[in-house]
């Protein structure tokens, strides 16, 4: 088998003295959806940051498309085609919604208006507010803008940290539909989700992270079917 599109292997590292990540491995094939679940504070967001280069790793390597990017800065990784929606602080509050989306397309030199229309189509509530400052939006609307911004990048690897936190069910469905669609176009998706059952439904591969290490790894449906996983991590 060809090597996976993203492979982050055996990552170890943290913020201060203690390690948060203890040998965490994440891989995503091209066009696949990978979902990370786990208890709060397990290190999911930290793992995402590590993959994106926002955390210094003590050990481990990150390969993108076969190329070692462990030493690259986040900004260089953006240019390599990685897009990221952080869990918090994921919008530009005093810029309008439209400008937020434009910023998503910052590294693109082509005409991005079509993509923008798609985003507005996906999130009609946000489209109504395109001239409003993003900081004045409701929690769920912000989340939509954040995801929209990442979609604007047209990345080849899209990383989402809890994209559906706080969005209403109808939008969540749309969002998951859209993510499936995006993946079909050959873009790899790596996301953290607490709406785990819905997410695992659509996941090609699921990781359960506990204390910074992989506890379970399997296809989404298989994890959903595992009663132990269900009970301890998916809320029954």
């Amino acid at each position, binding site marked *: 088998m060809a090597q996976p599109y993203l492979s982050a292997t055996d990552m170890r590292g943290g913020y201060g003295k203690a390690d948060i990540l203890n040998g965490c491995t994440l891989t995503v094939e091209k066009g696949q959806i990978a979902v990370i679940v786990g208890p709060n504070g397990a290190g999911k967001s930290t793992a995402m940051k590590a993959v994106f280069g*926002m955390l210094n790793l003590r050990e481990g390597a990150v390969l993108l498309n076969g190329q070692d990017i462990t030493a690259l800065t986040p*900004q260089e990784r953006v240019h390599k085609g990685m897009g990221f929606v952080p869990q918090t602080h994921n919008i530009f509050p005093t810029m309008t919604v439209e400008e937020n989306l434009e910023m998503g397309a*910052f590294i693109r030199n082509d005409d991005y208006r079509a993509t923008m229309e798609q985003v507005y189509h996906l999130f009609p509530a946000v489209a109504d507010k395109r001239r409003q400052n993003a900081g004045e939006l409701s929690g769920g609307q912000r989340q939509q803008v954040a995801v929209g911004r990442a979609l604007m990048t047209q990345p080849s690897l899209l990383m989402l940290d809890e994209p559906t936190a706080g969005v209403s069910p109808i939008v969540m469905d749309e969002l998951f539909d859209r993510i499936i669609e995006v993946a079909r176009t050959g873009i790899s998706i790596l996301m953290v989700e607490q709406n785990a059952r819905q997410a695992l439904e659509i996941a090609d591969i699921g990781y359960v992270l506990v204390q910074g290490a992989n506890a379970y790894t399997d296809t989404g449906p298989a994890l959903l079917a595992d009663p132990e996983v269900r009970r301890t991590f998916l809320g029954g």
Partner: protein
Amino acid sequence: MDILNAIVTLLNFVVIPAAAYGAQLALGALGVTLIYGILRFSNFAHGDTMAFGTALVILVTWALQAVGISLTPLPTALLALPIGIALTALFVLGTDRVVYRFYRKKRSAPIILVMASVGVMFIMNGLTRIIPNIGVREIRFDDGARFLISVQDFKAWTGLNEGLSLRVSQALTLIVTALCCWALFRFLNRTRSGKAMRAYSDNEDLALLSGINPEQVVRLTWIIATALAVTAGTLYGLDKSFKAFNYFQILLPIFAAAIVGGLGNPLGAVAGGFIVAFSEVAVTYPWKKVANYLGFQPEGLLQLLSTEYKFAVSFVILIVVLLFRPTGLFRGKSV
């Protein structure tokens, strides 16, 4: 006729001087507000950047004059300005590299950056004063014509009792300020780099994730702010005269202007500059003469407050404005 006299008096003593002073403050405040908006700290070294830059402009002006280049009837300093800006910008970028970058990387609290800027202020303050031939002296470098309209000419043309004067430097200041504002606005709101700067100021990490090069944004910010500062400093020096100490003193009203307009908001900085200037001049203006022309014969001077309190007046106005609009007239940021 008397009405005309009254109007001319007002123009001559209140409107024109306040407008020119306001424009100078506005230019300075624009720089302060830009740094605040994007790098998120109050730069105390701004006044001394103005002084330092102006000192360099003067040196270049002298050099130009020495080789016989001049720009009459406009002041030669305008020719020297770009060079002065470039030199100062180099210096300022150096301070960023040596001083501020460290704290940015460490994500220090804004107050630490403010204190670092106080350190830079002290250093620039000293440097300006030990530049040979500049030092603590008072220097005039406004060659070229001084007046567009002088009092005597005006009286002769119009036959009015009251005169009106408009200096070249005043006119220049107003024009340049308007140009700078317009350009800055277009830049921030329309261009890619401008938007990148605003994005950076909003959310540094996310800007990074969007592929914006933060160091480039920071550099650009410093360069623009320096250009504004040196321009402001030079215009101010042309209008009054150059004295390093005064540039330090002018920092206070500049901050007042930036804040009353709303920190981080360029439009606010401009409005703030004029508010501070007009309140200083107008509130302490004795209306006796004007009243005389309008047919009243008041006993006193009709002065609301004596000029000793002019600074206080502008601060009172500022506080009142803030009480009703707690983040300034144009909704600024607050750290």
